[in-house]
């Protein structure tokens, strides 16, 4: 049993191994060549197309001729293309490269109803591989115009991606690959939008290529377009379309388009346009070049009518326009700039159109405008905007005006001149800007700007030099100190003077001394005249003044005895006191008995009194206490 089990086990393993090898070999062999068919849609409108893709996987390239598309029913092949790719994989532990080819057929329906494609067949190395048949439902044409953009049936990988995004091919080309290219398989045409125009009116020239074969634009050469102002149009987004010409179906494409604005009148001719195309009647045949020419075109250009031409009309202003003008702010402060924008918008030769100019305005300083021209690149008609930005600086306050501007142009549609006008712009200019707000404008009050101007030089000057500051001069400090010094002196003088006027003992003594001096002199003068009474009166007074000046005793009202007694009390010696007493009595005698006195006696008395006064002054005396 054990031996049988072991044998059974080995048998099972062997069978399984053989089966696995066989399966792998079968799969590997089957994967060598495959063909599959698919469509991008199962239902297609009559005016649209369906793309049939045959994917062939094979170790080597498969010629297109080995594929039999089979019956396509009511669908007609209108184009083909191929795509190649390489696939890499491991199979059975080995690297394997497989070439994948896609044969794309563009099928156009010819009638509505259900139709069948295929099955397609591939003959490869003596074997025939086939696809499954595909049913397609063709419905009535879609209401959507063929002008609407369609996705290319070839996807983004067109064999001629430069200017064409479609590749033209007829089923006949595909079926008769070796047939030669016919003259009418491809041609170019140039058309003008109108054969008659006025000077300045747009005429559009469109260059189209019609083809029944695969082709792409190599180059084009336009003739000299004398007498025209040319504005090229962008046709890079133009789409290929189909059209029957002389009973044959062509694909056509706009190659170029130019807007021409005649600048002179007369019969203007557009010479033939030369177009060089690269043509391929089959993806499997080499590309050939072919030069094509358009027929010459003639445009009849008339002058603009003179009748009704406005005075401000300027040549070149032809089209349909609108005009606007405005300021960015209607309230500004003096000397603050305002932007005035004049905008012209419409169809016509925007670059050549000449809008009105802002005139010189006395109350504004106007800077040269900034011009901005925006012209649309696409579309048959030239449209755009021309803007002029003026910077205006108000030179006066008040309500200032920017006048209305007039613009006249010729409208070819109405065959008439038209005149547009901007609105009058009013700007309120304040004399100043306060707290971030524009100050109110005074009614009717206008102020010219005078501030901000550069002040001129001075032509006359004494050129007197500004020397040292005053305070640095040497005399400044003495000058500063002199008034208080003077004041102090005056004050001191006044003080002294006031003090001298008081009735103190000392003042009395001083005044008495002065009197004594004066009286002695006076007595001397009187003695020479011989007037004894006067002489002795003066001498007696001088003697008493001397006593007062030395001792402070006021002798007035006192007897001689009292005076001499007080003198002795104050320290005057008795002898001097007695001499004074004797001289005083002698004076009294002389006063009251003048006849007894002679001149020499008076002189003796004067000398004695002087000696007594000197003696008194030599005495050590304690002056009498202060009395007022």
């Amino acid at each position, binding site marked *: 049993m054990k031996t049988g089990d072991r044998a059974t086990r080995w048998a099972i393993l062997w069978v399984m191994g053989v089966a696995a090898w066989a399966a792998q070999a079968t799969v590997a062999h089957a994967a060598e060549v495959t063909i599959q068919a698919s469509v991008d849609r199962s239902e297609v409108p009559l005016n649209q197309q369906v793309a049939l893709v045959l994917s062939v996987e094979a170790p080597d390239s498969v010629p297109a001729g080995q594929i039999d598309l089979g019956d396509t029913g009511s669908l007609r092949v209108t184009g083909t293309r191929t795509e190649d790719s390489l696939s890499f994989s491991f199979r059975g532990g080995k690297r394997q490269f497989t070439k994948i080819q896609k044969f794309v057929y563009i099928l156009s329906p010819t009638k509505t109803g259900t139709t069948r494609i295929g099955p397609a067949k591939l003959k490869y190395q003596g074997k025939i591989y086939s696809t499954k048949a595909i049913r397609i439902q063709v419905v009535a044409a879609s209401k959507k115009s063929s002008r609407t953009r369609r996705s290319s049936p070839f996807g983004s990988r067109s064999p001629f991606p430069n200017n064409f995004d479609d590749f033209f091919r007829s089923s006949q080309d595909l079926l008769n690959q070796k047939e030669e290219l016919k003259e009418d398989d491809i041609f170019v045409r140039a058309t003008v939008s109108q054969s008659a125009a006025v000077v300045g009116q747009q005429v559009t020239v469109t260059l189209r290529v019609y083809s029944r074969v695969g082709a792409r634009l190599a180059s084009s050469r336009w003739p000299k377009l004398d007498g025209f102002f040319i504005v090229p149009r962008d046709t890079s987004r133009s789409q290929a379309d189909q059209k029957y010409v002389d009973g044959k179906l062509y694909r056509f494409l706009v190659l170029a388009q130019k807007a021409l604005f005649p600048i002179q009148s007369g019969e203007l001719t557009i010479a033939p346009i030369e177009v060089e195309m690269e043509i391929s009647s089959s993806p499997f045949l080499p590309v050939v070049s072919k030069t094509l020419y358009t027929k010459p075109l003639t445009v009849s250009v008339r002058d603009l009518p003179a009748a009704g031409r406005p005075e401000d009309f300027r040549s070149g202003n032809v089209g349909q326009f609108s005009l606007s003008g405005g300021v960015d702010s209607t309230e500004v402060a003096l000397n603050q700039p305002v932007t005035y924008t004049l905008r012209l918008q419409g169809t016509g030769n925007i670059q050549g159109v000449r809008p009105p100019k802002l005139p010189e305005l006395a109350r504004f300083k106007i800077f040269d405008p900034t011009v901005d021209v925006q012209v649309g690149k696409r579309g048959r008609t030239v449209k755009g905007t021309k803007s002029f930005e003026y910077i205006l600086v108000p030179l006066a306050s008040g309500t200032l005006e920017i006048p209305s501007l007039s613009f006249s142009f010729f409208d070819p549609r109405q065959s008439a001149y038209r005149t547009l006008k901007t609105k009058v712009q009013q700007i309120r200019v304040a004399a100043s800007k306060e707290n971030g707000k524009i100050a109110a404008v005074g009614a009717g009050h206008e102020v010219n700007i005078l501030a901000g101007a*550069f002040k001129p*030089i001075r032509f006359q*000057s004494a*050129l*007197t030099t*500004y020397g040292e*500051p005053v305070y640095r001069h040497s*005399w400044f400090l003495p000058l500063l100190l*002199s008034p208080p010094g003077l004041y102090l002196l*005056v004050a001191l003088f006044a003080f002294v003077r006031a003090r001298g006027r008081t009735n103190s003992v000392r003042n009395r003594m001083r005044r008495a001394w002065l009197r004594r001096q004066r009286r002695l002199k006076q007595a001397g003068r009187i003695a020479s005249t011989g007037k004894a009474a006067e002489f002795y009166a003066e001498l007696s007074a001088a003697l008493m003044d001397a006593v007062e000046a030395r001792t402070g005793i006021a002798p007035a009202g006192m007897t001689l005895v009292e005076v001499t007694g007080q003198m002795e009390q104050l320290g005057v010696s008795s002898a001097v006191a007695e001499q004074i007493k004797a001289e005083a009595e002698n004076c009294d005698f002389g006063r009251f008995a003048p006849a007894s006195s002679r001149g020499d006696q008076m002189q003796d008395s004067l000398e004695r009194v002087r000696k007594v006064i000197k003696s008194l002054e030599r005495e050590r005396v304690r002056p009498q206490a202060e009395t007022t």
Partner: protein
Amino acid sequence: MRRFFCGLLLLFLCCRLTPVAAAAEGLPQDLSDYFQKGNKAYLNGDYEQATEAYRRVLEAGIYNPDLSFNLANAYSRAGQKGLAVLFYEKTLQMDPNDEAARSNLNIVRKDLIDRVVDAPGGAAGDPLWHSFIRSLSLGWLTWTFLSLYMLVFTLMIGKRLLRNESLRRLAFWVNIPLLTLAMVFGLLLASRIYLQEKVHHGVVIAASLPIREGPERTAKVLMEVHEGLKVRYLKEVGDFMRVRLSNGVEGFIQSSQLGRI
């Protein structure tokens, strides 16, 4: 008494007229010719020749607001904004009421590169009273003060000497407001002299100049300033001047690149 007052008045007038007389001394003809030559060159648009002619007069020691103003105008027209600002400032220092110089200075300042803004925390520029005091003419302040001062003391002395009691009383009451005014003007004059002697300003005359952290050429650059910027002098250290901007920012600038007002 009358003689005393007359003497006092004569002394005052002599003092007052002395500088005027000195200023009116005759100018050498060639200097006057240079001034006119500068004016002519200015009118012809030859601003370099104009500045040269004005400079000749200036270097001869003529310190005059008209000359300084014309020189500033010529520098301004020649595009030398730093020197233009400097001489407008000098003109205003001589005559703070010179409106033409102030106007032109403002116009030139609008074209300057530097705008001093935002005082950093704690920093402060010149106090406001500096500006006020500087706007007063030194000469006017001095003579006004001296006049009041003399008048006050004259009245005080007169009061001392007058014997008429009514006149003495009148002198006293008139003197009170005069004394107050004299004290105010004295204070203003003292402040003005303080600013004149102690607070100095300068103007950057180089096209651009670094402000450094220290008085060394290798010191870190704090910022770059440009011609026409007014700075306050703080202290001179070697070739450098410690300066303060009007927003209080301080740093060191090469002294040779500054013009003192």
